[in-house]
């Protein structure tokens, strides 16, 4: 990963009248990384992204992208940036191919090979009218247009919303491919597992304020996973008495706990018992917020 800063957000504030959109946000996205932008709905992710792109006018602070001011130089920034909005519409009466060709030509790119390649990957029918597409297929059109001009920076707002799990995996593959090519990707999500799967780093925002920016590995470590085991004959609480296991609760024959490390030890220990069922879940974002601070996450 290079250390050139692609997106440099400094003390950014956006107010909607008296309502805070985002407040004093500082964030850097480096060249060649996939940066996840995590937060519950209404936390300010979309506001941050749309302010970066000049769609919203900032109230205070600065955003520099490729070293250019996001407001003065918005057009030049957009020449190098692909964007998938979280909520968008297109021309319902026109065919997908017509729309994509129009958007591609606006970016000054000729040739349709990228449209063809991406639509084949995502199984998108280019001959259909946009208005006839399902929500998932519309999302695919959004993804294709974000990537088709082969730009250096791709900003994605909730990119997998509406995609089925299989398609989500294909999309993650696409992200990795683009990263290989040296692209910088800044994507928002409210799904922790998704960020864990594809991102190098994650920034977490809540209530318009940045909570934490962390390497994805250390985030995982601090965060732990929820482990649920059903035993045939029940179990004593003290067998889980070890480093990296917390919040152990026994309810009848079911044990629930949070494992931050030493998962290997836990499995070895419980394997001496008869196990009926076992599941390991990534936290939901809400659970993350509930446990993150008690676990000593620092800002």
């Amino acid at each position: 990963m290079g250390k050139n800063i692609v997106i440099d957000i400094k003390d950014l504030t956006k107010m909607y009248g008296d309502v805070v959109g985002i407040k004093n946000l500082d964030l850097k996205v480096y060249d060649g990384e996939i940066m996840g932008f995590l937060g519950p709905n209404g936390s300010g992710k979309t506001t941050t992204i749309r302010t970066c792109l000049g769609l919203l006018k900032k109230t205070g602070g600065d955003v520099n992208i490729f070293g250019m001011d996001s407001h003065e130089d918005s057009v030049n920034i957009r020449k190098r940036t692909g964007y998938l909005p979280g909520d968008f519409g297109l021309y319902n009466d026109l065919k997908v191919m017509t729309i994509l060709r129009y958007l591609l030509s606006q970016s000054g790119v000729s040739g349709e090979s990228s449209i063809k390649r991406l639509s084949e990957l995502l199984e998108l029918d280019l001959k259909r009218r946009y208005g006839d597409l399902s929500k998932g297929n519309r999302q695919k059109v959004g993804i294709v247009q974000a990537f088709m001009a082969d730009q250096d920076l791709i900003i994605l707002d909730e990119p997998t919303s509406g995609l089925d799990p299989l398609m989500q995996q294909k999309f993650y593959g696409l992200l990795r491919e683009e990263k290989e090519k040296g692209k910088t990707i800044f994507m928002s999500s409210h799904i922790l597992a998704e960020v864990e799967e594809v991102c190098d780093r994650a920034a977490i925002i809540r209530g318009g304020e940045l909570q934490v920016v962390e390497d994805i590995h250390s985030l995982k470590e601090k965060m732990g996973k929820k482990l649920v085991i059903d035993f045939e004959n029940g179990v004593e609480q003290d067998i889980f008495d070890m480093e990296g296991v917390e919040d152990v609760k026994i309810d009848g024959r079911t044990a629930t706990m949070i494992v931050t490390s030493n998962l290997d030890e836990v499995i070895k220990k419980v394997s001496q018992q008869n196990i009926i069922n076992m599941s390991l879940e990534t936290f939901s974002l809400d659970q993350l917020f509930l446990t993150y601070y008690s676990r000593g996450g620092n800002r």
Partner: protein
Amino acid sequence: MLGRTMLMEFRKSWKGFTIFIIVVVFTAAGMAQLFPVISEAFEEVDELEGEQFVHMEIEEDIIHLSWKEMDDFVEYIVIEDSHPYMVTSGVVNRTSLNHTSIPHTEEVRYFAVIGVTDESSKIPIGMTSTAEPRDPIEELMETPFYRMFTTGRADITFEEIEGFLSVELYSWWILLVGIYLAYISVKSITEDFEERRMDIIFSTPLPRRQYLLEKFFALSLFTLLMLVLSGIFLMLSVHSVGEAGGSVFFVSLVTSWPMFLVIIAVSMFLGVLTKSSRIAVGASFAVILVQYSLFMAGHMVESLEFILPYTISYYWDYNSILLDGIFKLGDFLVLSLLTFIVLAAAIYVFDKEDIPA
């Protein structure tokens, strides 16, 4: 890239455009087809209705009216007005005789005699006037009400096709074309907001100024195309009813273009400002209708004439082209300047505001 947004405007709206062009062309050309029938009807009216039944004699300062006596009537009512159509008439006399005398004044007066039967039903007997015999329709055209549709010109007559089309087509042309143009101009902006296309449109390196200008040019070109087609078909239609002077109709119709450019610019401005189809469409219709009403009022009432230069319609003097063959370059410049100012305002507002999510 230059011109792409303009092409897109045509691409997504060509069906509506086409239908509207057909409607406008048919209206323009069809109106000229009505001329022979209507002018014939007007030519026949050369005397007051029932003039032969009422006799008038003026003797110094007395007017003597007499009429044919009929058995069915128990009373006669004589009414008078300063216009032949007796809308604001007053009763001069009621009598059971078949004649009456009235003091004579210098003013032009029209008299009508109405017979009342013993069952109290009233039947008009006839009319007469102190005026030279005139076509009552021509009289009508000079009244304040009709001055609205003649832009105050007394030389308009239905017996000539220029006059006929001036009143029956050109006088409401701004409504026919302007209302639709206002609608599509507003929509071309607000739909991109309401259908949430703005984010993707402005993720491409398209400056907001260029977006507005390309839409404006698309709508302007569409309007010009429509005016040229209407002009051509109107010309052909005038020719087909055996009237001469076709090109003057073409020129007078096509020179309404700058007026419509103002309407397009104002509608786009309202679209950008409100970002709402409902509000902006309503507001742009209001602009057109209010300025049209003021334009009409300015011609109807002399004391309101000062309003005229504040209306858009005032700067498309079709009668000057139709009747005098004069194109007013000054008017063209006023409308062009106005278009420029309003467009600049639209760009200014659009550039500095948020695009709502």
